[in-house]
Structure formats: structure tokens, C-alpha cells
């Protein structure tokens, strides 16, 4: 009776015997070759890393039915000039005069629509809160409001909420300047509204 080892050895030798003539052929001896000249080649690997930070963008745009921004259209720092206004005169084109605004008492106001374009990037947020405050106290008798919000103050820590669920994209807001009926304004009224858009 043959041992299993012998059987294995026998089969192995048989395989070798079959392969030996094949090994003698030139093709097997040299391996795969190119015909003619093989092109030289090389590889390289470049690892690229980056960290994407979320961002929110705020731009002012002139509204078609309002005053054109004096400067800074399509940027986040724009200038709006109402020009010369009077309560009982004709309102400049693109403005509206109200004799009973809600954000001030015993006052009248001039308003114009301005487009706010707010977009968020790389952040999960369905809407945002829009708030505003003044960089300096306005002259006596003057006040500023956006969309008939409460009159804006100079508190940067607690800015006045203008819209607590503003939709991303372009939206129109009325910027209003309120003037006391008894006020005497001998110089140009000049102030800056700082807007804050906070993603919700």
C-alpha cells in the first residue's frame, strides 16, 4: 500500500515533467516583453487636504423700486442717501413718507426698500435671525428702523431683532429714518446701521 506522501510526490513530479518542455520555450523564459521600445513611465501620489469652514455672506443690493445705493451695491458695506426730504413735500423717487410711523412718537419717516442677500455655505441652517444696531447715537429727534422694527439702539450686545426667521437668499427690507415733528435738523443726519445675521 502506497503512502499519501508518495502519491503527492508522484503527482508533483508528473506536473514538473509536463511543465519542463514549456519552460524551455523562449516565451516562458523571457516573460512578457514589449515589441520594440517600451515607453518609460513613472507614478506619483499627491495627498491633498483641506478643512472647509462654514460661512455666511451678507450683501446689500439696490432694490428696483427703491433708492439706488450710493455706493457698495452687492457688497456688505453700502451707503444709502435719502437726499433732502421734508414731511409735506413730495417724496423723492423710490421713497415713501409716512406721517405716522410706529417706531417713533410724534414723528414722521421716510423709507426706501433695500434688498438684503444673505447666503449660508457648508452649514445646516434653514433660516437666520436678522438684527441691527447703530454705530453711534443719532442726532436728537432722529431714529432709524428696519421693517418697522423698534427703533434701533447702539447696543451691540443686544441688537434689535428685525426678523427672527429670515429666509436665505434675497429679501427686501424697508429702511426708515424717523424724524421728530418738533425736531430742527440743521445739518446732515448721518449714522451707520450694523446688521447681524445669525444662522438658526
Amino acid at each position, binding site marked *: 500500500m502506497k503512502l499519501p506522501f508518495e502519491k503527492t510526490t508522484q503527482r508533483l513530479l508528473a506536473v514538473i515533467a509536463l511543465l519542463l518542455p514549456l519552460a524551455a*520555450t523562449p516565451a516562458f*523564459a523571457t516573460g512578457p516583453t514589449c515589441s520594440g521600445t517600451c515607453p*518609460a513611465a513613472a*507614478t506619483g501620489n*499627491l*495627498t491633498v*487636504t*483641506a478643512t*472647509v469652514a462654514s460661512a455666511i455672506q451678507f450683501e446689500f443690493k439696490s432694490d428696483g423700486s427703491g433708492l439706488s445705493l450710493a455706493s457698495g451695491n452687492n457688497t456688505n458695506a453700502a451707503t444709502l442717501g435719502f437726499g433732502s426730504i421734508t414731511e409735506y413735500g413730495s417724496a423723492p423717487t423710490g421713497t415713501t413718507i409716512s406721517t405716522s410711523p410706529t417706531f417713533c412718537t410724534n414723528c414722521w419717516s421716510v423709507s426706501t426698500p433695500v434688498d438684503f442677500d444673505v447666503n449660508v455655505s457648508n452649514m445646516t441652517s434653514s433660516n437666520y435671525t436678522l438684527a441691527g444696531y447703530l454705530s453711534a447715537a443719532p442726532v436728537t429727534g432722529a431714529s432709524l428702523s428696519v421693517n418697522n422694527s423698534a427703533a434701533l439702539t447702539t447696543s451691540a450686545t443686544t441688537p434689535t431683532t428685525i426678523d427672527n426667521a429670515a429666509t436665505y437668499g434675497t429679501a427686501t427690507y424697508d429702511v426708515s429714518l424717523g424724524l421728530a415733528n418738533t425736531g430742527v435738523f440743521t445739518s446732515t443726519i448721518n449714522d451707520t446701521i450694523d446688521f447681524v445675521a445669525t444662522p438658526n
Partner: protein
Amino acid sequence: MASFRPVFVFGLALAACIPAWCAASRVRLGRVPVRRLPTMRVRIAGAMSVNFLSAADTASIQGAQGFGVLNLGTVSYAGPVATRGVHIQHQPSGFDVETSLVLRIGSQAPAGGTAMVRAWLQNLVNPYRIFLDGVPLSQHPVCVDAHVPVGVDTRHQLKILVPFDTSESESKLQTEISLQVVSN
């Protein structure tokens, strides 16, 4: 009891193969000098290499020959980017992170030749889209430039499109771009 049958079979096979083997390789036994068959027909046109380099106005690439690491830093739609040579381009669907990289294809062959550059990604990095010289990259090799000069520095533009809806969990981008250069 051991059998000599396998040894006998192997011996027979070997005896049958030796003449064919010798004839094929042109080896003559005896006193005749050995003459090898000229089987090595491969002629390599000079070894090539790929080097990633930095320039004064490009982002810094760390690494050695054949390998490079490019860190674009922190990028956002709002920009600007602190990393030298990295720029943001606003797009309707997001923003592009753009930078140039310098590539030098080395070769031992005489200068003046060109090489074809193919590129692909080792791993997909959704939702980002990566372009090299304007060619979108995927996991399948694509020809980026069919005739890149060999032996000189060449500039290439890397662009990564970051969609607006890239979430916070996807904010870390890491991918590996593989290049293969083949002499023309």
C-alpha cells in the same frame, strides 16, 4: 516500502526535455562557447520620475520624489484663505478652491521630450469635485495632458469644487491624486 517509480518518471521527463531546452536557449554543451539567445528586446527610454514642487506663489508641497502632501488649510465661501497661493472663486452652486502646483517630470533620456500625464483619485471624496487642469478626476485614470515637457517645471491648476450643501461632517477633505507619466 518506498517506490522508485516517481524518480524514474521524473528522470524520463527530464531526459526528454533537455534537448528542447538547450535548443531553445542556444546553449551548446561541450567545448563550444556558450551563446545566449538575444531574448532581452526591451529597451527602456530612460527612467522617469515625478516630482511635486512649490513655487513662490503656490501653496507649499511637502514630500519627496514621487510623493507630495498639499495642505490647503481652512477654506470657506467667505474667504480669504490664509494659505499662500490658495484662492476662492465663488460659483452658483458653491465655491472653488484653486491653487497651482508645479510638476517636474524627470527622465534620464535627453531633454526635449514630452510625456503624457494621467491622473486619478485613490478615493472618491463626495460631495467635492476635483479637477486637474480643468479635467474632472475620478477613480479611473484620465489623460490630463498628452504632452507635458520632460525635464522642466510645468504649472498645473488644481481646483476643488465645494458645494454649498457640504455638511459639517464632511468638512475634512483628504484625498490622494495619483499621477502616471508615460513618455511619448
